[in-house]
């Protein structure tokens, strides 16, 4: 078994304190080391670590940091994406409430590496308590001189502000987030320019997920090579926090080396198998935006590349397990209601398409669907997919296409029987 970085501290209230962090977790020693290194040396170490973004897209963090221009007339920003709103995802919350200093140390090192003096943590509004815990940790860090002016006697100064969102899934998308941070509606921006060129307040900006950032102190302390080897596949280093929810006996977080388990192993060896020993029906492997897999497809390794190869994605590593007792048409209807509600409305295909998909799936679920509705659904999804400013459109289209293709007979039963067969 690989070593775990985070999970052994979860559930312990004392872990929040800076005293615990310093004594039990070698806290802030990575920061000390970092400020003795050059920016390029740090970025080089993060590149070697093969740290892939944990927010959903899996982009290599070191490469992203390398995009930040060395010289900039505008201030640079380092932003922590703590919006965590992808259905099925619940890992960042524990990182923030049990190991807040790990997140802070990661942000400070990231800020130093890109030449920024300002960090923001954009946290979803519902995490009021977690925002308070982060603020308490920030206060401790200022007091000890890990934040503020001339950190540890160096010329480097850095501030962190917690900025609360207010209930909008789209603010997890990095440019929607930046608009929201600036006091606007959280509508995603046209890219390019990418945030690394013009992000927060027009300055070069890095946006990274909480878990990505929490990995940084380990990489600096123990080296990129060490971190890379925690992963079992090439180009995918470190451990991952898998959040398993739905119909398993033991839902919750599991931390394992990247690429070290298949979905089947995770469900049966770690989560105790399927709830009530029923038959497995479906697995959504990467937050609700990831295309669904059937019970026959779960021998795939749970990591970025292997899931991509089978037409799904690891996304935020939120694994939703569905047994035979729950109607998949009803489940998809609920999922698409979410996307229709959360579409920001800027792009016509997404705004109109998600609404239509919701209506059609609901009518099928309630027995009012027609045979041609299935192809209509696929057609609408195809007209959204890849045709919008941000990936919310794809996130809604992917589930619809995969559910209709893989569970077509469930949909047909609803249509022909004019009701839900389970009802």
């Amino acid at each position, binding site marked *: 078994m690989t070593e775990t970085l985070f999970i052994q501290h979860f559930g312990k209230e004392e872990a929040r304190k800076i005293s615990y962090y310093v004594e039990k977790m070698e806290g802030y020693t990575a920061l000390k080391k970092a400020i003795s290194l050059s920016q390029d040396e740090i970025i080089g170490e993060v590149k070697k670590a093969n740290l892939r973004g944990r927010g959903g897209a899996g982009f290599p963090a070191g490469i992203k940091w390398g995009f930040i221009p060395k010289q900039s007339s505008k*201030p640079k920003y380092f932003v922590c994406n703590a919006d*965590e*709103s*992808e*259905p*099925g*995802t*619940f890992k*960042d*919350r524990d990182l923030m409430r049990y190991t807040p200093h790990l997140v802070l140390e990661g942000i400070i090192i990231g800020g130093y590496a890109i030449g920024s003096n300002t960090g923001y943590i954009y946290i*979803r*509004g*519902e*995490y*009021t*308590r977690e925002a308070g815990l982060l603020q308490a940790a920030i206060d401790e860090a200022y007091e000890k001189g890990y934040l503020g002016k001339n950190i540890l006697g160096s010329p480097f100064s850095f*501030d962190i*502000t917690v*900025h*609360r*969102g*207010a*209930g*909008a*899934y789209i603010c997890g998308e990095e440019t929607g987030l930046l608009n*929201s*941070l*600036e*006091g*606007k*509606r*959280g509508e995603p921006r046209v890219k390019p320019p990418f945030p690394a060129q013009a992000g927060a*307040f027009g300055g070069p900006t890095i946006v990274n997920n909480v878990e990505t950032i929490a990995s940084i102190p380990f990489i600096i302390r123990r080296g990129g090579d060490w971190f890379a080897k925690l992963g079992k596949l090439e180009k995918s280093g470190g451990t991952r926090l898998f*959040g*398993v*929810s*739905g*119909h398993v006996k033991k*839902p*919750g*977080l599991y931390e394992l080396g990247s690429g070290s388990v298949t979905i089947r192993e995770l469900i049966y060896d770690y989560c105790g198998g399927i709830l009530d020993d029923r038959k497995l029906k479906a697995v*959504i492997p990467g937050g*609700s935006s990831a295309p669904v897999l059937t019970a026959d497809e779960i021998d795939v390794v749970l990591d970025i590349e292997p899931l991509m190869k089978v037409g799904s994605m690891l996304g935020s590593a*939120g694994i*939703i397990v*569905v047994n035979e007792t*729950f109607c998949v048409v009803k*489940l998809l209807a*609920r*999922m698409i209601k*979410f996307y229709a*509600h*959360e579409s*920001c409305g800027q792009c016509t295909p997404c705004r109109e398409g998600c609404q239509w998909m919701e209506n059609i799936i609901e009518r099928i679920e309630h027995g009012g669907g027609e045979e041609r509705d299935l192809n209509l659904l696929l057609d609408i999804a195809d007209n959204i997919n890849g045709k919008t400013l941000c990936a919310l459109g794809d996130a809604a289209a992917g589930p619809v296409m995969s559910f209709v293709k893989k569970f077509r007979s469930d949909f047909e039963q609803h249509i022909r029987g004019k009701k839900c067969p389970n009802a």
Partner: protein
Amino acid sequence: MQKLLSEAFYLEMKKLEPKYPTRLALLLPALHAAQKETSWLSPVILEEIAKYIGIHPAQVREVASFYTMYNLKPVGKYHLKICTNVACILRGAEHLVKYCEKKWNIQCGETTSDKKFTLMEEECLGACGTAPAMMVNDDYYENLSVEQLEALIERL
């Protein structure tokens, strides 16, 4: 115009001002801070915030209405938000919603006539591993059964 927001609100905002390079960035924090005082954001409150930031009230409304957490209508003393997204619906969240709707004879989105409870269906709260999950005002309740919900409501 007489100020409705307290001294404490303006002090808190003053402390936040140096943390952002623009004044507009104070808008979301201001809306949060105001709502904490007044429980909902009435048009006069939005106007007062607009004045503080230095923008038109329509701009404040435009932004505030984008976000579901800002109450642009009055809400009850206890604001129940029950997650019915994937993980929670798989774990029986619908029973929780039905229980409340029946008990209070209201629909999601409505407030009881005594203004004590507002019921809402919520999107994923980030507590899927301990589903079904619900918020009451700022607090989370997880792994919730109908019996526990019943007992909790009795205590409120």
